[in-house]
């Protein structure tokens, strides 16, 4: 099953309680559980917001927006109720970390939700977990029930006079629903079509009320920050990129697994020392650094610090922490095709550039990989992707465009090797695909 691994370079903050039975509320309390929320109840909301801001915690879902700053956008006064929404819709290809948090430390998520609520004046939180994670939804249901039983949730939590309700909510299969405005639509019982921004969720969110939406790992980090302090958390990583994060190593690696490393950890070191390098004597060809929505890196580009700002400078993104290692037995055209197939399937269909763009690109890449490509297809794939970028109603279009552009630019020769009806140089003999999509 989802086995835990470890490495000496790990700095365990959000994974501190993994494997320690912390789904049991009694055990969670023994392991410093629910101390942070009680501390927060004794603080001014602005003080909590500033603490989280100063810690440098940035969204662990992929966008990397400063969490405290997001919380500060919630208006003090609101005619409509305010909400905290935990985004547990983890569906970014290569990402499997929130799964472990829900499995091993669900109370940390609950605690983070409540602290976010106290900081922003909200009294209701939802934990949205993707439909496929049914066993984790059941763990969360029990955790919530146990927290209510102890008076940690509901009316007058911890005897403080503050009310806070937390409800679970299960999805039913949709990547786009992980986009925060589509998440709200889904929670409201609709198709997960994103909303126009502005207004942003912190001002107009669930049922029109101000809503803070944070990734599960982001929220699970909050109690640790309350207890350890902003300075401690900030110093674990580079300036403005505080803390540690869960990295999901996968692909052609000897030791795939989820490891918690300080922000700014070197990617090359991560692949070779933590991940154990590439097995079977193969060579590294490419790396997906933070989930499939990021520009890929070549073997020559992996000497980079894995933090939000360094990765941006390197022309990619830290993203969701999903690191996929690709060796030299892999066809990059096929890889680009598989990525586009995903986005085409998951496109909500609302806006033309994404709906038509991902479909056109999938069809072109399918025909191209099967040997039916012509030279101008290569430039066209890049051109179509670049024209989707920044022109779609939500970032899914960008997510489809960015890896594609990087693969065409960095592996152009592989595209050229598929021209003139040549079979894919990497395909096993006799295994073919239909020429037309």
């Amino acid at each position: 099953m989802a086995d835990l691994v470890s490495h000496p370079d790990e700095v365990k903050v959000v994974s501190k309680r993994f494997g320690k039975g912390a789904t049991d509320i009694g055990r969670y309390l023994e392991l410093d559980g629910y101390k942070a929320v009680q501390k927060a109840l004794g603080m001014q909301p602005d003080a909590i917001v500033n603490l989280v801001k100063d810690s440098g915690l940035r969204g662990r879902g992929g966008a990397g927006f400063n969490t405290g700053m997001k919380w500060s956008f919630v208006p003090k006064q609101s005619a409509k109720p305010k909400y905290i929404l935990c985004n547990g819709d983890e569906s970014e290809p290569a990402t499997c970390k929130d799964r472990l948090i829900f499995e091993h430390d669900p109370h940390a998520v609950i605690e983070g939700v409540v602290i976010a609520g106290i900081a922003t004046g909200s009294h209701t939180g939802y934990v949205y977990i993707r439909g496929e994670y049914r066993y984790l939804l059941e763990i969360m249901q029990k955790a919530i029930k146990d927290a209510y039983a102890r008076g940690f949730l509901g009316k007058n939590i911890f005897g403080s006079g503050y009310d806070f309700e937390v409800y679970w909510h299960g999805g039913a299969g949709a990547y786009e629903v992980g986009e925060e405005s589509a998440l709200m639509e889904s929670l409201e019982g609709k198709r997960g079509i994103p909303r126009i921004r502005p207004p942003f969720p912190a001002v107009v969110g669930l049922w029109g009320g101000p809503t803070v939406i944070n990734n599960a790992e982001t929220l699970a980090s909050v109690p640790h920050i309350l207890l350890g302090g902003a300075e401690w958390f900030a110093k674990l990583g580079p300036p403005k990129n505080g803390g540690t994060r869960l990295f999901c190593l996968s692909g052609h690696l000897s030791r795939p697994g989820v490891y918690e490393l300080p922000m700014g950890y070197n990617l090359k070191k991560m692949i070779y020392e933590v991940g154990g390098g590439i097995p079977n004597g193969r060579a590294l060809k490419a790396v997906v650094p933070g989930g499939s929505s990021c520009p890929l890196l070549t073997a020559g580009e992996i000497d980079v610090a894995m933090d939000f700002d360094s990765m941006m400078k390197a022309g990619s993104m830290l993203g969701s922490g999903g690191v996929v290692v690709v060796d030299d037995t892999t066809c990059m055209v096929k890889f680009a095709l598989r990525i586009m197939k995903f986005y085409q399937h998951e496109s909500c269909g609302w806006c033309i550039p994404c709906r038509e763009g991902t479909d056109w690109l999938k069809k072109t890449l399918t025909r191209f990989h099967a040997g039916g490509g012509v030279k101008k297809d290569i430039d066209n794939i890049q051109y179509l992707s670049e024209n989707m970028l920044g022109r779609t109603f939500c970032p899914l279009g960008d997510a489809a465009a960015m890896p594609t552009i990087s693969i065409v630019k960095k592996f152009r020769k592989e595209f050229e090797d598929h021209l003139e009806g040549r079979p894919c140089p990497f395909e096993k003999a006799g295994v073919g695909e239909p020429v037309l999509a």
Partner: protein
Amino acid sequence: MLTHYPTKRSVLVPTLLYAQDEVGYLNHEVIHEIAQRLELTDLEVINVISYYSMLTTKPRGKFNVQVCTNIACMLRGGEELLDHCKSRLGIGHKGTTHDGMFSLEEVECIGACSWAPAVQVNYDFHENLTAEKIDKILDGYKTN
């Protein structure tokens, strides 16, 4: 669950999945019942169903074998695993065996990337798979 939200409609998505778990698929009767209870039209409910990939309006096998072929699983034999399942079960993507025991689906990332290649059978995760392992696992479901 209805008391958890300010609108009735908000329970729709999880309710549809729970209803499907019970009935096997979302047939007209179930759709109509849910629509009535939530004060929606049947069409509004159908429109939501069509968006979510786990929901189906067609009968399915007792065990739905969902094979991930997204990038991390693809690199570790996910496609070969899918082909193996197609062969063994004698069905393709979204097919159902004659005895109604198994359905097969090629799915997108299920969040098991570090334990790839991975499969879900209904809600059960099966990871670090090989053809031999999946055979044993499917045998296990068959005898159940």
